[in-house]
């Protein structure tokens, strides 16, 4: 048996000791639409602390929209409407009066690497500076720690002053991860991070993510089914705005599914 949509509590046997305590994210009756055109319908599920929560599904299935709703990027996307509720740490995201404070607690990694047109150092120091950290020594420490955790430090330590946007695609993506980590987020959202990254770098980043699991919660949107299999503790299958299935990743790949479409997608029959 696997967890279906709308079921309040997921099956506990699938979770190791890491998943104690209340969920970090509670999604209830979430609907997202763009100018009346629905992108996600009636989504209700929980995401637990310290899990890697995979979201798979073909294009236009609402995966990215879900991420955008999590850190309320909808405020800057014209025509994006969000109904239902998302609670993070028990607090409705719409109740945050200071939107920027909410966003600063959520790290986001976009599909295409975005090295801001600043130096490597300034890229990573951007968020700490927004928080008001000014001391050189403190910033140095944050930059080195985050770059090291993102497995990039050794490659860039001698050129921290060069433009972040001049790094290679894979390096930029790790820079983006370092930047996200510099926010000291509780939650890390990754949106198809490996699209523009070579396989070797992808594996390195995946290792980084596995290590990070002990410190934070990761929501991993991916169009690579095998990537979800390698990383995710639980995986949700989104299809054209419908949450078809949510279950322990292992179960899904053992074809212990509730909906035949899931197997169809996992086996590559469509999508």
């Amino acid at each position, binding site marked *: 048996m696997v967890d279906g949509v709308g079921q309040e509590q997921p099956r506990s046997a699938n979770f190791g000791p890491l998943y104690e305590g209340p969920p970090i994210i509670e999604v209830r009756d979430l609907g997202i639409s763009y100018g009346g055109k629905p992108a996600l319908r009636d989504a209700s599920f929980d995401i637990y602390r310290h899990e890697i929560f995979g979201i798979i599904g073909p294009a236009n299935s609402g995966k990215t929209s879900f991420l955008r709703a999590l*850190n309320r*990027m909808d405020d*800057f996307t*014209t025509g994006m409407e969000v109904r239902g509720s998302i609670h993070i740490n028990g607090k409705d995201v719409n109740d945050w009066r200071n939107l*920027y*404070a*909410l*966003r*600063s*607690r*959520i*790290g*986001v990694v*976009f599909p*295409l690497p*975005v090295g*801001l*047109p*600043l130096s490597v150092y300034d890229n990573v120091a*951007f*968020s700490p500076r*927004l*928080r008001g950290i000014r001391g050189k020594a403190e910033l140095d420490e944050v930059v080195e720690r985050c770059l090291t955790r993102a497995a990039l430090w050794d490659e860039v330590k001698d050129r921290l*002053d060069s*433009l972040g946007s001049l790094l290679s695609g894979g390096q930029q993506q790790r820079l*983006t991860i370092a*930047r*996200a980590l510099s*926010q000291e987020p509780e939650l890390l959202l990754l949106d198809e991070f490996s699209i523009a990254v070579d396989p070797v770098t992808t594996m390195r980043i995946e290792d980084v993510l596995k290590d990070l699991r002990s410190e934070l919660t990761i929501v991993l949107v991916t169009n690579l089914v095998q990537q979800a299999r390698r990383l995710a503790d639980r995986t949700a299958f989104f299809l054209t705005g419908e949450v078809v299935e949510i279950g322990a990743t292992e179960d899904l790949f053992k074809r212990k599914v509730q909906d035949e479409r899931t197997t169809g997608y996992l086996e590559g029959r469509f999508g």
Partner: protein
Amino acid sequence: MDRRDLAWYVDKTAQWVIFAGGISAIVFIVGIFIFITKEGLDFVLGPLNLGEFFTSIAWRPTSNNPTYGALALIVGTASVTGFAMLLSVPLSLGAALFIAEFATGKTREVLKVLVEMLAAIPSVVWGFVGMSIMHPLIMRIFDVPLGLGVLNAGLILGLMAAPIMTTIAEDALKAVPDAYREAAEALGATRWEVIFKVVIPASRNGLLAAVLLGVGRGFGETMAVLMASGHAINIPTSPFDSVRALTATIASELGDTVRGGDHWGSLFTLGILLFVVTFVINLTADIVVRGIRKK
């Protein structure tokens, strides 16, 4: 001829047309420089006294004992352009920021069209505005005997340069990928932080180009300055003083000169000066931009 042949010819032809287009810019600029220099060279090498040219304010080319002191003209152009930039740089960068970053939907479209329409107003119309509207207005408001001068010409020139600067600056801001904005927003930056820490640094080359285009416009503008500046040879000591610009001098005097004479040559020397200054401004900008890029 099969289709591949045709495609090959089309491709080759397009290549040549584009090459010719690109090279023509160089041909024209070099051609203009050669022409101006040729016309002015006899004068520069002959009767011109460089010391007098740059330090004297006595521009009397038609006198029995002609003197060619261009200092007042240089100061006239510089003061009017400087005043215009003081006014229009903040105005147009602000307008560009508003249109590119804050205005949405209809507001944005309407503003863009209006700004572009403003850029299309002929300079003689601006000159007319300077003469018939600003002139009496300045006299009344500041209680001065004459409303034609640095203030009037600077205002008019500033208003003329602003739409172009706004358009170019807005293009530069819009050219910054939204991915940068989203990334910065996702890091928890407010909109001002996004604009000042990411968008403006990323577009500074374009913004600089916009400002320099405005400076160039101010420098080269003739008709409006001729009409609004008072056209009097004078070193200004207050914004209400009349001045005469380099360009306006060439425009107003060239028709009355003997082709190939000293006066003719002296006007072309002013042309060379304008050309060199413009060239230096652009070169400086280029070096600055390169410097920024290298970093």
